[in-house]
């Protein structure tokens, strides 16, 4: 396969392909985060239940496991679509560089096997295995979930910092697959992603119970259901903000155009200010709150450091500035809002061994899941849209990678419709699961009616 021979595709088909990829990834990532984070939190509950004999923990674990059954199925199919789309939409990428990023995907395949196998055992053998072996059968699910998040993000990191291959005349002549996988962007990106998964899962699970408590179900069972996942997420949040800072420094060093877009820096300058809010109009960032020298300090640890502006890059190679800038602001805002929530919980706990009793606390927890998801999606928009117009940064353009076949727009319409239906059905089924009172004997066996939770 020759690079030079690839046609350039522009127009509606390219837009459709990009939107379709963004839609399916943005959908998958939510379920995938629950797939990474939920098993760990569920096992924690099951373990507490086993240790203390507290039936509420055991009920919570079974409840969550039942939801996991649904979420994993949806995660598996939405992930499969992604593997198809890598070829259907981006043959120009996969046909040449597929082998360079193949290794992490193969490793991910192993992780998927482990995950699916032990999920089958864990969910279906609740009553057939003694408690401890059953608990242990859940551990590989956690490990494999974290591992698959790691592997797939290394592939994405490679798209940001392509290393580990040699080309001659547009053909790949040598590949160092391990070097490609452990490229410079791998450490910050994978860490940031895995922590994000735990935040999303923890806050989202806690949200469900906060809503129930706001509706008046304030029994001990709901309190535990709120506290356990919320504690996990609250512990992760400050760490995540530190890692986010690391990610930002990395971008500043290695993808200056993306950083300039994130911060709306048009002119190269020394001692650049940090912009809060604002919108880019006609080559200028308007209405932003400026914190003098903030950006130079944060990005390079030196208030007088030089920040490369967009003017160093031809306009044709700019990513969409406003999208990247606003997405970055949204992620940071959500991150700090969630940090406040975590601090509130911690202070109250240290003082009184009790979560805050204010209804505003419950209201805040009720929206925290949404906030974490917004941060997650916004972060990916920064990463992926900020990389444009490159699909492989500095190496291959998105327009060279897309499938030149006509009619991608129709595929996009069809896929969007299917995702719409899938979203409605998933939300509906999960809500039913959360509302139905009876608790199942084993998560995947028919419900036992009349079993009261409270």
């Amino acid at each position: 396969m020759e690079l030079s021979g690839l046609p350039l595709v522009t127009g509606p088909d390219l837009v459709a392909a990009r939107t379709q990829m963004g839609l399916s990834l943005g959908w998958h990532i939510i379920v995938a985060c629950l797939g990474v984070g939920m098993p760990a939190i569920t096992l924690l509950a099951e373990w507490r239940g086993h240790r203390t004999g507290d039936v509420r923990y055991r009920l919570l674990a079974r409840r969550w496991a039942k939801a996991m059954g649904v979420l994993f199925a949806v995660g598996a199919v939405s992930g499969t679509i992604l593997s198809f789309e890598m070829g259907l939409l981006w043959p120009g990428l996969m046909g040449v560089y597929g082998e360079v990023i193949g290794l992490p995907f193969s490793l991910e395949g192993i992780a998927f096997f482990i995950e699916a196998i032990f999920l089958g055992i864990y969910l279906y053998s609740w009553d057939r295995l003694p408690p401890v072996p059953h608990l242990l059968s859940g551990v590989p699910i956690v490990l494999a979930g974290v591992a698959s998040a790691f592997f797939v993000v290394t592939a994405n990191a490679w798209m940001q910092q392509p290393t580990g291959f040699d080309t001659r005349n547009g053909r790949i002549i040598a590949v160092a697959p391990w070097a490609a996988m452990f490229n410079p962007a791998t450490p910050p990106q994978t860490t940031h992603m895995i922590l994000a998964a735990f935040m999303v899962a923890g806050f989202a699970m806690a949200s469900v119970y906060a809503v129930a408590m706001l509706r008046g179900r304030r029994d001990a069972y709901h309190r535990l259901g709120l506290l356990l996942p919320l504690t996990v997420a609250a512990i992760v949040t400050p760490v995540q903000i530190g890692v986010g800072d690391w990610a930002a420094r990395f971008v500043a060093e290695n993808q200056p155009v993306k950083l300039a877009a994130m911060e709306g820096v048009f002119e190269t300058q020394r001692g650049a200010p940090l912009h809060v809010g604002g919108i880019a109009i006609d080559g200028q960032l308007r209405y932003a709150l400026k914190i003098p020298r903030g950006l130079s300090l944060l990005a390079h640890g030196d208030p007088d450091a030089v920040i490369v502006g967009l003017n160093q890059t031809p306009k044709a190679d700019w990513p969409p500035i406003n999208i990247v800038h606003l997405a970055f602001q949204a992620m940071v805002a959500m991150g700090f809002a969630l940090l406040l929530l975590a601090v509130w919980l911690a202070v109250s706990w240290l003082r009184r061994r009790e979560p805050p009793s204010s209804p505003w606390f419950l209201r805040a927890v009720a929206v925290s899941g949404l906030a974490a998801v917004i941060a997650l999606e916004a972060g990916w928009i920064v990463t992926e849209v900020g990389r444009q117009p490159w699909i492989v940064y500095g190496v291959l353009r998105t327009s060279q990678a897309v499938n030149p076949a006509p009619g991608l727009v129709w595929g996009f319409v069809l896929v969007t419709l299917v995702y719409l239906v899938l979203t409605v059905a998933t939300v509906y089924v999960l809500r039913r699961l959360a509302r139905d009172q009876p608790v199942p004997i084993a998560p995947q066996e028919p419900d036992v009616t009349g079993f009261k939770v409270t």
Partner: protein
Amino acid sequence: MLPEIMIVVLWIGLTAYALFAGADFGGGIWDLLAGRSAAGRPQRELVEHSIGPVWEANHVWLIFVIVLMWTGIPSVFAAVASTLYIPLTLVALGIIARGSAFAFRKVSTRLWQQRLFGAAFAFSSLVTPYFLGTAAGAVASRRVPPGIAEGNLVTSWNNPTSIIAGLLAVGVTAYLAAVFLTRDAQRLGRHDLAEAFRRRALITGCLVGLLSAAGLIVLWLDAPRLLTELTTGRALPLLVLSVVSGLASLPLLWRRAYLAVRLTAALAVVGLLWGWGVGQYPELLPGVTLDRAAATETVLAATLGALAIGALLVVPSLWWLYRTSQRGHSPS
């Protein structure tokens, strides 16, 4: 040597997908044909009970095959995916509908929901193998040229060979499922269900046999080169194995040797798949041999090494999963 090992591993993955996930698809087809809600309930429960714990693991074989394709033979992957993007998009959508509807139905408690999700599950179980089959037919009949989107977007998978391959894929999955379910029902002590599925296995077995015979005629007219590859040289023993096992399955079914027929039914599929692979080797696409398409040695070595180590983890776990799920208690 590494490219050959890689392609063999890929074909093992494809075979595993055809056998295990194929039977899961077939289960969905029988779900579709099980009849009205009340009358069909025991059969649907048997299907659900048999595939519930294993379908996700079985499904991973497909991901394995896709990933190994883009790692091991990237340009072939790109050519296949871009030319066949219409049927493959439909496959992808079918997979979404099937997996999620199956999980949704399981946790639904109302009849209308179970019906709705059940219908989506069953219908996509029928459609998905058909389009996968047409894609296989397109590659086998040399209708996917190298290069990106170089083939005809419509006729590459709408032609006699593709259509017969699609129908055969549907028939084979239904047949495999009926054979597997017969034994499952017997083990659970549901002899009525075992009899019902035995009858279905016999009927679909005959239909698939007729379809295969028709397929040879279609190949003779539409893809003579493929027919020659299948019926001469290296591929012939495998084709014979497939035909003989297929034929032997029928008397075994008749005599209720359900365990033995599992083996022969599987061998019939294995023979066909490997006959195709061996017959076409070393050419993957018209004018593209394995050696030209294969990834660099370092990639193949790293990937195969990783997979070998992974297999040490996966194979015992899979065995444990099948053990625990086969030991299971009866459907309520």
